[in-house]
């Protein structure tokens, strides 16, 4: 009797979970009819703008990715290696270079997410599904913000590395240090 009651309770809980789930998925700001009408009216122009932005972002990404990688591969890694070979303590520089490489990997990942989000928005039939289109554009905007944040973080790390090299130079090769030698 008890086990039957327990089973019934469990089934009810499972049923409630499945019924309630779509409610959570639909939660969020609802669009008014006037807003939907505005999206439907202007979406063709918005699509053209989105296509242009998407197309222009591709070479920007390629150039940035190439430069970021070259800075790491042809400058940072080589200086770190040279300092270590000459028995200098390059721990800080190595750490910053490592953080930079991690951020570069993140930059590639977030750009991929952004590109997918943009592709999804561009594929949406905005006349038939204006709310869906608006939602996808919002998702693309969020993803673009993540790319921007990653770009800013990479810039911060680049400046940080430059300052650390300057500090290293002052510590080991300033006029006072050279005079002591």
């Amino acid at each position: 009797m008890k086990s039957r009651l327990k089973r019934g309770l469990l089934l009810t809980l499972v049923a409630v979970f499945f019924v309630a789930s779509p409610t959570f998925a639909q939660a969020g700001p609802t669009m008014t009819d006037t807003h939907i009408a505005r999206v439907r009216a202007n979406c063709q122009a918005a699509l053209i703008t989105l296509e242009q932005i998407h197309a222009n972002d591709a070479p920007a990404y390629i150039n940035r990715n190439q430069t970021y990688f070259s800075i790491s591969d042809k400058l940072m890694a080589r200086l770190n290696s040279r300092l270590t070979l000459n028995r200098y303590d390059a721990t800080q520089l190595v750490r910053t270079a490592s953080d930079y490489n991690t951020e570069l990997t993140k930059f590639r990942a977030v750009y991929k997410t952004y590109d997918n989000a943009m592709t999804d928005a561009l594929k949406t039939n905005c006349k038939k599904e204006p709310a869906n289109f608006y939602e996808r554009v919002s998702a693309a905007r969020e993803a673009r913000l993540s790319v921007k944040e990653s770009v800013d973080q990479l810039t911060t790390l680049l400046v940080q590395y430059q300052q650390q090299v300057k500090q290293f130079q002052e510590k080991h090769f300033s006029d006072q240090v050279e005079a002591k030698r």
Partner: protein
Amino acid sequence: MNEPSVEQAVHKPWYRRELFVFIVGSVIIALVLVAVSTALYTSSGASLLDLSRPGYKSVQGEVKQTDSFEAFSSDGPVDRATLDKFQQLYQQQIQSVSSSSGFDGTALSDQSLSIDEPASQ
């Protein structure tokens, strides 16, 4: 008694079935290989670097075709002149990525796409 009749031998030659399996098998293998390579092309991020895709022809010229990046030597002594040379190379390279603000958020704003909610009257 069990031998195929002359008619059967004409309509179903011995190699017919094997040839069919061979062709279908080849097509299936080719399709699987194409699917795997396409998945790799997309998942590895190589597709993002490929401007020969449809819709990107107009921006192909915007990509730097030559790598003018001067590398720093990883061996040799370390002195002030070496580090000055490094700083010069470094500054030259980071300028191109630090000066321009990439992936500005305002480009995709509701207002710039004219899909913002109309102001209530």
